[in-house]
């Protein structure tokens, strides 16, 4: 039967059947009582707390010095006694040695260490660590600079000063800057474990050596260097432990997407515990799975104990994914105006709720997609798992040698179901189409949208046609498509789609094929459709572009000014 311009028949092929998940053994769930820490709490550790107490003591001491003249005199006298005694031990040899050690605190030493770390972190694309490093180092230099200005503390009195210095003495800026830079290097470049443990005593030795040389040369008093060291350790330590906790953002040197979080160690234990408590699953093993096909989350395969053991699929989402999503959407808004639903999520919780909701919608609409098992909280508002059925014994559509009419019909029927249910998947690509027993399953429904624009639905159709055509001929796919979609709909699909609307994996698959499938489809159409423009210009987009450019410029100028005042330029 020739298709008509009207609504095409829906009864082509077999009806879409929701896949039947395997039976998963579930035990009792446990509710976390009020006040109990979540599975993966963020902690400062004991050492962090000790340093924070030391910093509080420093602040108390400063408050005492400022508010009470007796305290100030007492500190001056104590410093004088120590510096005087140390000066009594001066020898020509020791003085030469101390003047050499003094170079550790020179601006050039700190500049070299600082910029080398910045370059290394940029090269390693470890941007979160980079920002914490920049922030912590600049905070320490700015904080010590402001405090030095506030406390107008003199250099050691009554002793000949043998080294170079500038400005007020307390806190010692060379010690604070060196300590903060070394701590930043340690926490952003050294992986947790042996190397980081070994680095701590090295830093302690270097900072102690510099501090002693400063006291020996009477450039600083003991209180200046002790306080500076405490500030220099505490600020980066707290910043790194709070913003880039090792369990969440480990420093590693193996290759992989920055979107993929480490699921070993404490996080692995937390995921085990959370799955058991919240879903009643007895977990045997958690392993990363299909990392290459995922850039926005960490996909996992969860082995559930039972007879036989079963598998579940889980996606781990964290704040980093939320931020990536935000940047991705901002980038698309700037580059193309507005594609569809480019409003960012506010929280990780909202993000996982969207995915779980989309899964349930798909399931309810009769689209063959994984059965949702629910959301698991790892750290409130920071990390969540979306758990679904694991589609076993399936192959990615892109991995098949070729597809037959049955698979083509099944794939196209998914699009028809989506259209009828008022949904769009928005990420139709080979990795998201699994084939098992000749049936196509649609996965990764994170981008799904309810009541999308006709343009977006048309793009879904075009992408499905293109994916299928990578494994057979456009002629075959077009012939089968005309059984479920009319010529106008297919033409609209190819009018709507262009490079940017195709997922990058699909573009790569077509490049690998060495064929321009889009053009081949266009040749099959009765007439070439007029392309639908993607670029949307609006006052909002122009305003956003100007705003972003100004913010970038402001950030750059602020950073340059901060670097300059911190002596790092």
């Amino acid at each position: 039967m020739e298709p008509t311009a009207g609504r095409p028949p829906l009864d082509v092929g077999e009806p879409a059947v929701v896949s039947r998940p395997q039976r998963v053994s579930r035990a009792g769930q446990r509710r976390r009582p009020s006040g109990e820490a979540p599975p993966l709490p963020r902690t400062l550790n004991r050492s962090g707390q000790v340093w924070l107490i030391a910093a509080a003591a420093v602040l108390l001491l400063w408050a005492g010095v400022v508010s009470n003249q007796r305290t100030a005199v007492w500190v001056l006298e104590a410093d004088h006694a120590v510096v005087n005694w140390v000066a009594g031990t001066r020898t020509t040899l020791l003085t030469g040695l101390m003047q050499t050690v003094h170079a550790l605190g020179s601006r050039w030493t700190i500049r070299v260490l600082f910029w080398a770390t910045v370059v290394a972190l940029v090269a390693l694309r470890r941007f979160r660590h980079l920002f914490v490093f920049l922030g912590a180092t600049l905070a320490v230099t700015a904080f010590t600079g402001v405090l030095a200005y506030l406390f107008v503390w003199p250099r050691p009195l009554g002793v000949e000063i043998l080294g170079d210095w500038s400005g007020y003495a307390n806190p010692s800026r060379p010690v604070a800057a060196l300590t903060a830079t070394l701590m930043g290097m340690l926490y952003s470049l050294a992986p947790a474990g042996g190397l980081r443990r070994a680095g701590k005593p090295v830093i302690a030795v270097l900072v102690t050596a510099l501090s002693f040389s400063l006291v020996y040369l009477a450039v600083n008093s003991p209180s200046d260097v002790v306080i500076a060291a405490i500030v220099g350790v505490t600020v980066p330590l707290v910043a790194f432990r709070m913003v880039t906790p090792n369990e969440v953002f480990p420093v590693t040197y193996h290759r992989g997407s920055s979107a993929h979080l480490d699921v070993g160690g404490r996080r692995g234990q937390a995921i085990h515990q959370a799955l058991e408590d919240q879903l009643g699953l007895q977990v045997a093993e958690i392993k990363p799975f299909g990392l290459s096909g995922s850039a926005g989350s960490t996909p996992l395969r969860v082995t559930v104990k039972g007879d036989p053991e079963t598998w579940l699929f889980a996606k781990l989402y964290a704040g980093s994914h939320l931020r990536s999503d935000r940047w991705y959407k901002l980038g698309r808004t700037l580059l193309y105006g507005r594609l569809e639903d480019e409003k960012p999520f506010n929280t990780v919780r909202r993000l996982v709720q969207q995915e779980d909701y989309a899964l349930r919608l798909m399931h309810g609409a009769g689209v063959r997609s994984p059965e949702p098992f629910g959301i698991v909280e790892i750290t409130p508002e920071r990390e969540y798992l979306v758990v679904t059925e694991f589609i076993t014994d399936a192959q990615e559509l892109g991995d098949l040698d070729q597809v037959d009419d049955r698979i083509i019909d099944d794939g196209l029927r998914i699009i028809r179901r989506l259209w009828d249910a008022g949904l769009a998947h928005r990420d139709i690509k080979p990795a998201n189409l699994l084939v098992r027993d000749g049936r196509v399953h649609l996965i990764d429904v994170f981008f799904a949208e309810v009541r999308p624009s006709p343009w977006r639905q048309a793009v879904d159709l075009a992408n499905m046609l293109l994916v299928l055509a990578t494994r057979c001929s456009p002629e075959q796919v077009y012939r089968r498509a005309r059984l479920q979609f009319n010529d106008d709909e297919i033409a609209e699909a190819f009018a709507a789609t262009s490079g940017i609307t195709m997922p990058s994996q699909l573009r790569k698959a077509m490049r690998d094929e060495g064929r321009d499938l889009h053009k081949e489809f266009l040749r099959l159409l009765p007439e070439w459709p007029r392309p639908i423009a993607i670029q949307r210009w609006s006052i909002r987009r122009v305003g956003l572009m100007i705003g972003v450019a100004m913010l970038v410029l402001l950030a750059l100028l602020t950073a340059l000014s901060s670097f300059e005042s911190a002596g790092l330029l």
Partner: protein
Amino acid sequence: MRRLLLAAVVCLLATGCVRPASTELSQVRVPACRYQGRQGTALVILMAQAVPTASQLPCVELLPAGWSVRDIFVRNGRVRFTLDSDRVGTNAVRVVLERFCTFGRVTRVPSDHPGTRRYQEVISIDPGRRYQGAIYYLFPGGCVTYRLDFRSDEQARPLGEVSLALGFVTRDALRQTLSDFTDGEVPLDPPPEPAS
């Protein structure tokens, strides 16, 4: 943990609140010749440490209306601060204390500060628009330069104001101030080397 953070914040706030930004604070942060009845401030003590040989330290006596101190820089061997004026421009006077001075074409004139020798130098005059010159004060162990740059048709009045605004504290007076502050426990300078 929260208590710790709270304590730290309270301390920080307390530190800031004990002496809110006041005239007292700003007095300490300018090289004032006198503060609370004593000669010199903490900043002048730091200046004395920068040039340990200087028997006199430059300071601000009383700023005439429209003048302000800015850009104070102290390091070993050199002290610098600047006076801005709302009439003769920013950087109107740059005061530098060093162990030695390099003179241009100077003329010796009677000094208005005891214990110092005064020299003057006219660098350039753009009649009615700009005057550039220098005043040098020489004293045992140091030299102070006032580098003048008046962007105005006036010359005599700002020069008079500068003479009123800037003065000197003797090192001995500063020693006494520190001794009073620390009950004589902490001296300003190291004890003199025993004569060999």
